[in-house]
């Protein structure tokens, strides 16, 4: 205090020289001006629990609206019975075997649905576009699922079911799928949703001139033919099994071709679909409003409400800071938000709020490796997998809001099978971890760190800065590895900075989180070259290729199981857990549930107030 006093007094001494003031302040002022920018570079957006398809929540492209964006297939046990998909204190259809959600209870299925009201939700960022051909952002897809209907939906059995398509035929070779489009469906602008409209949609995505990021979702699709006004044939170069999931989620939403013609490049900010809600307004930077489409018919069989939605409107406000969204919820300015695991306790203690938890989510937290020593040594990979104290990570890092997972596939994705994990997985066992290393010729050095041929097991694990649970997890893993004799250092960095490092392979290992609703996640991660360009195993590639091209569901399941077994035996990654999607809502929000892939059924929701 004293020194700054004299500094200022020196500055203001008789000369009262502005130049001297400027020189002094330039240093501090510049620093003060730059500091927030640097801070912004260093801090990715807060992690999202209601995440979309982004591999890391730190890339901030996940929606925090209660309308959980990505849709995934419900897992079944090996005997085929669906696992509980969600727990909801508001009581919607699916029975849940495990504990019901915490927080205040509300009478389940209380009363008759009431029409009216606006459901006020939040987004962590502004979507880039509401044109499914022009965006693959999770935030956008979370909104688009209410504006657009798709050809099929994935049901609790994880199979595609008719939606806008009444039925379909798959050619024997699997490289042609012919859909019959339901008659009578109309877009919000009154034009007909027929075969021509469907063809126009996919032509647009396939067209190189569109530069559509969604094109990759269509796999080996090359062209679409209009067989007759209600029949469309999709032609592939080879069978592409993920196709049904991909077109069922909002990327496959059917847009009105007339609207595209009318709005041109501005279509992305003026979307027209055939879904339960119509686009109303989007004042740039502030938020979005959707209104009920009164002419809506619900063709999906997994909804309670067969007609137009009960809600008059859905409004989205952009709130990047999760603490602020929580404050707004508590204050009554929002009705439902997605919350971080750290916020669970506060929500639980608030009797006005209910917690909605989706446990069989399609998230996967894991440790992955670079293609270099020591990770080229199977023994090391296995030892690391044995050293993951999943229960501590779930309770300590995720506040209990996760399911420990032994399999390299999310709990909520088709193909997840507990018995595979029991048989081939690496349950937490430090003794086994040490033994695996010593059996492979490693011995502890004088510093206690395992070494072989003079090379110490010492490396750095990267964690991205947007996720507190993962940061805690990294510390727990570090401590466990230390006990085994492995020295693991931790580096935290902004995901945007981490990604190029991963892509170049300039890393040892990292802690990552991925989200995807379809078993093709295995190929996205591990099929040569792998998402970090570290994978090149022809055996694995063959297994994954088989899983990706098996259009028959049971054959595909078998292929996935085979691939999972291989991935486990090779300890390609060290799986940790599947973190849950957690939303918090006021008690008057009724009828809220997630479909099989995690899309919130807002057309079923009503507000028990006014």
């Amino acid at each position, binding site marked *: 205090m004293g020194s700054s006093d004299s500094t200022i007094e020196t500055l203001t001494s008789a000369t009262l020289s*502005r130049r001297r003031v*400027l020189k002094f302040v330039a240093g501090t002022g510049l620093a003060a001006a730059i500091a927030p920018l640097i801070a*912004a570079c260093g801090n990715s957006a807060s992690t999202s629990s209601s995440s979309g398809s982004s591999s890391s929540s730190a890339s901030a492209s996940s929606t925090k609206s209660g309308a959980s964006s990505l849709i995934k297939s419900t897992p079944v046990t090996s005997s085929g019975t669906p696992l509980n998909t969600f727990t909801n204190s508001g009581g919607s259809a699916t029975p849940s075997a495990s504990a019901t959600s915490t927080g205040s209870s509300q009478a389940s299925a209380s009363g008759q649905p009431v029409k009216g009201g606006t459901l006020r939700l939040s987004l962590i960022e502004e979507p880039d576009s509401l044109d499914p051909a*022009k965006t693959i952002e999770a935030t956008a897809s979370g909104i688009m699922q209410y504006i657009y209907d798709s050809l099929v939906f994935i049901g609790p059995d994880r199979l595609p079911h008719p939606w806008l398509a009444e039925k379909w035929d798959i050619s024997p070779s699997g490289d042609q799928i012919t859909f019959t489009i339901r008659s009578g469906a109309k877009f919000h602008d009154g034009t007909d949703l027929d075969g021509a409209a469907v063809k126009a949609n996919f032509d647009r995505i396939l067209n190189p001139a569109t*530069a559509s*990021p969604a*094109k990759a979702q269509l796999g080996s699709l090359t062209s679409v033919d209009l067989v007759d006004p209600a029949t469309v044939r999709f032609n592939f170069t080879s069978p592409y099994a993920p196709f049904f999931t991909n077109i069922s989620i909002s990327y496959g939403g059917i847009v009105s071709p007339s609207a595209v013609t009318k709005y041109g490049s501005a279509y992305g900010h003026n979307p027209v679909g055939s879904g339960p809600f119509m686009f109303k307004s989007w004042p740039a930077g502030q938020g979005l409003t959707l209104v009920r489409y009164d002419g809506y018919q619900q063709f999906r069989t997994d909804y309670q409400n067969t007609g137009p939605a009960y809600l008059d409107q859905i409004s989205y*406000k952009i709130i990047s800071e999760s603490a602020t969204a929580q*404050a707004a919820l508590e204050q009554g300015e929002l009705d439902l938000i997605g919350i971080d695991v750290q916020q669970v306790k506060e929500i639980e203690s608030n009797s006005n709020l209910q917690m909605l938890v989706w446990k069989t989510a399609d998230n996967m937290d894991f440790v992955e490796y670079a293609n270099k020593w020591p990770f080229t040594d199977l023994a090391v990979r296995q030892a690391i997998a044995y050293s993951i104290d999943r229960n501590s990570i779930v309770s300590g890092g995720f506040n209990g809001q996760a399911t420990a997972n032994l399999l390299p596939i999310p709990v909520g994705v088709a193909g997840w099978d507990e018995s595979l994990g029991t048989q081939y997985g690496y349950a937490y066992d430090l003794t086994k971890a040490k033994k695996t290393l010593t059996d492979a010729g490693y011995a502890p050095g004088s510093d206690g760190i395992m070494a072989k041929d003079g090379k110490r097991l010492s490396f750095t694990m990267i964690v991205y800065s947007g996720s507190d649970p993962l940061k805690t997890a990294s510390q727990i893993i570090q401590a466990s590895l230390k006990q085994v004799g492995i020295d693991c250092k931790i580096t935290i960095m902004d995901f945007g900075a981490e*990604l190029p490092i991963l892509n170049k392979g300039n890393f040892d290992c990292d802690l990552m989180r991925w989200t995807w609703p379809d078993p093709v996640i295995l190929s996205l991660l591990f099929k040569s070259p792998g998402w970090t360009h570290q994978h090149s195993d022809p055996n694995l590639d063959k297994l994954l290729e088989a899983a990706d091209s098996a259009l028959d569901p049971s054959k595909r399941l078998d292929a996935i199981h085979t691939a999972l077994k291989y991935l486990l035996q090779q300890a390609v990654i060290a799986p940790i857990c599947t973190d849950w999607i957690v939303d918090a809502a006021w008690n008057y929000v009724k009828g809220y549930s997630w479909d099989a892939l995690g899309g919130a059924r807002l057309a079923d929701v009503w507000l028990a107030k006014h």
Partner: protein
Amino acid sequence: MTAYIIRRLLLLIPIWFGILVLVFLMRVLVPGDPIQLMFAGQISSPQAEAALRHEYGLDKPLPQQFIDYVDGVLHGNLGTSITTQRPVLQDIESRYPYTLVLAVASLAIAIVIGLITGMLSAVYKDSIIDMISMVFSLAGLSMPSFWLGLLLIYFFAVDLNWFPVLGAMTPKGIVLPAFTLGVISSAIISRLVRACMLDVLREDYTRTARAKGLGERTVIVRHALKNALIPIITIIGLQFGGLLSGAFIIEVVFAWHGVGELAIQALQKRDFPLIQGIVLVVATTYVVVNLVVDLLYAVLDPRIAYK
């Protein structure tokens, strides 16, 4: 005077050029690529990525991109944002008023609090008032704006319900964010006002004014403060720059939809056109504000004249 103003405004051109070069250099120095980030965690294909890169001109060599960008700027086109798919100028135009309103409101609060507490400290030097205000200044200088903002939200909005949490561009909604920024900024102004006033109060002309029999209030406000204002105004002008950038974080905390909130999102996604546009606009504002401050000197001190 007019010639002086024009000369100062012409200085903007090399400043703009300098900023453009620096921001372009950021692409080289800061790791991260917008298209890579867009496809992270998604099904991607080399063709899809290449097509998008081409659409945003990111496949051209960097010097060529620079030339194209400068050419665009000269024609009033700041490019298209990768994250909003809208023209950058449109994005900035729609959001900049929010940031300016917040910065101005914060500055007003900072000046009012800073002047009052600084003057009181100077006049009642070493008294309890002085000590309280110095502690208050220190607290304000040390407090992270983010934390203070959240604290104020929880106390005044959630607990007391005096203000809304989400009140972008409403009179009630501006109070908390402007106060957060203003309080922190006022700490610096307060310290400076105190020091300047103490200095001026020691001057001969103050003694003369008192000897002439003028009331203490007249002495302090009309004579002492007016002379102390010159370095104070310099600091205030520089503070405005700090407020503009501090607003970035506050905008995120309060969901105040200005360019700051947009910039944070753009930075995370490496949306270069948008970042460039925002930096240009904010820097220009800063230069203009400092010009206004310089011109104010001529008003405050008749000895100063610009040719």
